[in-house]
């Protein structure tokens, strides 16, 4: 089946780019496609949804408290009569924004440090000790101290929500790049000794071009995988901070906060825990599948099989 598709494509279309090949392979990974579809759905829902579902997530309608699902409130209401669907959508915006931006930050820092320390012998020692240092830091106490120190300054500079957003993204990003850096460094160390790199070096390729042209594309798969895991991690860390009362203000919904608020009502109204829990786990799962598909698609040895 795959063979057939492959040959017809080669015969009838103009020369193919590498990315088209990657996409072609990705398309055949069923889990990845499902994950991608779900992730796009979630993104659309939380970012476009509030334009269709216009109830204010913070509006309290005390007479309608603790209601089950109905046409007016498809996911019911919470103990103060706030619409759960609206809160899920608003919460998703924040959680996803935090997850994706913190992941990007961690990725850039991790990949940079990994590549530098793998490629340049001189930098290896200091950078890896720095990584060890960060790995040894206990994450949560560090977060608490950072938030306590900088909360007020950021709050007055950007307002309570944006300030905390920057702080959380920064703090999560800056404390979760280490694994990426280590994995990337290992891969770079191995790549550096491969023939094609040595050959390229012998014709005088500059280190910058070498990294960009030969090293980075080859370490893309570990980077992608750690990126997907990073999103999940960031969403969960944000929930932990909300849980400790140090994240966003208490009436500002995020998936983690919704989950935390509902734990008291776990027995009477289990659906209030299930909705945010499901959203978090499905998002994380879908992102993981996308990562899985990417890895397969980016690996030239698997591609085409």
């Amino acid at each position, binding site marked *: 089946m795959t063979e057939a598709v492959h040959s017809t494509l080669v015969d009838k279309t103009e020369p193919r780019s590498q990315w088209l090949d990657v996409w072609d392979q990705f398309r055949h990974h069923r889990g990845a496609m499902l994950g991608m579809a779900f992730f796009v759905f979630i993104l659309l829902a939380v970012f476009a949804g509030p334009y269709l579902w216009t109830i204010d997530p913070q509006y*309290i309608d005390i007479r309608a408290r603790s209601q089950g699902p109905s046409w007016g409130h498809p996911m019911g209401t919470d103990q103060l009569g*706030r619409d759960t669907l609206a809160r899920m959508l608003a919460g998703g915006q924040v959680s996803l924004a935090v997850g994706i931006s913190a992941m990007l930050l961690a990725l850039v820092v991790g990949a940079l440090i990994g590549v530098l320390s793998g490629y340049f012998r001189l930098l290896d020692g200091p950078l890896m000790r720095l990584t060890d240092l960060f790995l040894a830091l206990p994450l949560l106490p560090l977060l608490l101290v950072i938030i306590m120190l900088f909360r*007020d300054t950021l709050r*007055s500079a950007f307002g309570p929500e944006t300030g905390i957003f920057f702080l959380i993204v920064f703090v999560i990003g800056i404390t979760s790049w280490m694994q990426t850096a280590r994995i990337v460094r290992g891969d770079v160390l191995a790549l550096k000794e491969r023939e094609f790199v040595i050959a390229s070096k012998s014709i005088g390729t500059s280190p910058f071009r070498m990294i960009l042209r030969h090293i980075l594309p080859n370490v893309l798969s570990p980077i992608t995988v750690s990126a997907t895991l990073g999103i999940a991690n960031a969403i969960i860390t944000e929930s932990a901070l909300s849980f400790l009362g140090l994240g966003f203000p208490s*009436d500002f919904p995020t998936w983690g906060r919704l989950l935390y608020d509902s734990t*008291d*009502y776990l*027995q*009477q109204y289990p659906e209030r825990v299930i909705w945010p829990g499901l959203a978090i786990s499905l998002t994380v799962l879908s992102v993981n599948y996308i990562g899985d598909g990417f890895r397969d698609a980016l690996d030239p040895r698997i591609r085409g099989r």
Partner: protein
Amino acid sequence: MRKSTCLLGALAVLASAPAALAERGSDGHVNIIYWQAPSTMNPYLSGGTKDLEAASLVLEPLARYNEAGDMVPWLAESIPTVGNGGVSEDLTTITWKLKEGLLWADGTPVTSEDIIFSWKYCTDPAGGCAQSEKYNDVTSVEALDDRTVKVTFGVAKPFPYGPFVGAQSPILQAAQFADCLGAKAPECTDANFGPIGTGPFRVTDFRPNDVISLEANPNYRDASKPAFATATLKGGGDATAAGRSVLETGEFDYAWNLQLAPDVIANMAAAGKGETVSAFGTLVERIEVNLTDPDPALGAERSTAKHPHPFLTEKVVRQALSMAIDRELLVEIGYGSAGRPTCNVLPAPEIYKSTANDACLVQDIEGAKKLLDEAGWTVGSDGVREKDGKRLSILYQTSTNAVRQDFQALIKQWWSEIGVETELRNIDASVFFGGDPASPDTFQKLYADLEMFANNFDGTDPESYMANWECKQAPRPETQWQGNNMPRYCSEAYDALVAEMAKTGALEERAKLAKAMNDMLMQEYVLIPLVDRGRVSAKSNTLGGVVLNVWDSELWNVADWYRVK
């Protein structure tokens, strides 16, 4: 049927009798859970109830209050009164006599020196003592003999039972704390974490903000008590987990202060492992308004009297905030039968209860809007009122707790209806009530515009409680941020009332003064009372002897607790 009931009754008596007469330590281990973790065992260094109550397992006062609010002698032989000659005719001295043969947990005798030391410890000018109002007007404490001390006041003290009475001013061992006076007090970690006391238990291991392990005090004055050989006081977590651990899973024997939504408690109790105990006291959930400017740009001077608040110093604004609140609804959402709406910060005992402020029981959003309109606060384009370039935008903080966060959300909505923008913040309760002068998030520092918490007083006399809002009680850097006047309220008239109450003897006069002070605070709206809260705690079905006391520490009679077999 009746026969079987009698039989059951007899069986119950038989079953409980051996427990009550048991030897010290015969009932094994008791597990107590406080969802706010104690951070010190020294009540003089913390205003937090959790610390006071944890310390009451170890440290004891000369007298304390029982569940009816009556004073009972504890380390003292009897309660001194004018009648028995213990209090002088001119009401300026009180003479306490220690029980005979009292020993500290380390085996040394308790003497009058220890009592004198406790006074010196708390009143050292270099140190911030959280309970200093208990020692107001004390000019000297002198030993008459080894067991007798005379406390002399600078003024006539009609209610001389401030010092050394109640969980807030227990006796410390002079030998242990000798080097911990004044500014050195917080540095004596060993002593603060493991004070040597006279109480039924002594500390074997103290982990701040976590767990306290205790064992029966071998030198406790009653040889048959306590019934438990060891005790664990686990701190931290949240009220839900604490309630569940007693009512539903039975892992713990006693859970303190279950501030949970009524239906949540009912649901847990259905499991049948334990029951709730409740009583009404003086605990009032209130919002305290910061009259000083908490702007971070002011650095170390933020939230001090040097910088008045830009708009909360205006009475109309505070009044409007109070009028917009529907207290009935708050009770219904948060407390059910364990609360009632109140307009007073002093809701009990009955003779002190003012009726002058009851208008606040009815929510009046329109009235609040009108007030602000008349005062020149106009609604801006974003729905927030403005005047002279100042916006009614406030930061409203409290401890992390589901009911409090619901209250915050509700109140925020009401305030937004009258054109006030609110930012909410919640802080972990152990930190918020911890009193650590190094933390910016304590309720004393009040680095916010408003804060919500509950407070009460032990005993039945409101004198020292009402003295909380004297000028000099304002927390500030010079007092190591100790003190209970969170609003930094400062009024000469109020201070005069406090001083007058301190020298008035007749009960009716005292009641009149207390009411006047309460009304002054209420009509100035520096405190916005919300709910008069009953205390709800939970005990396991196998724990006997619990008498819930709202007038003193809940653990006041822990020596009498036993295992129901």
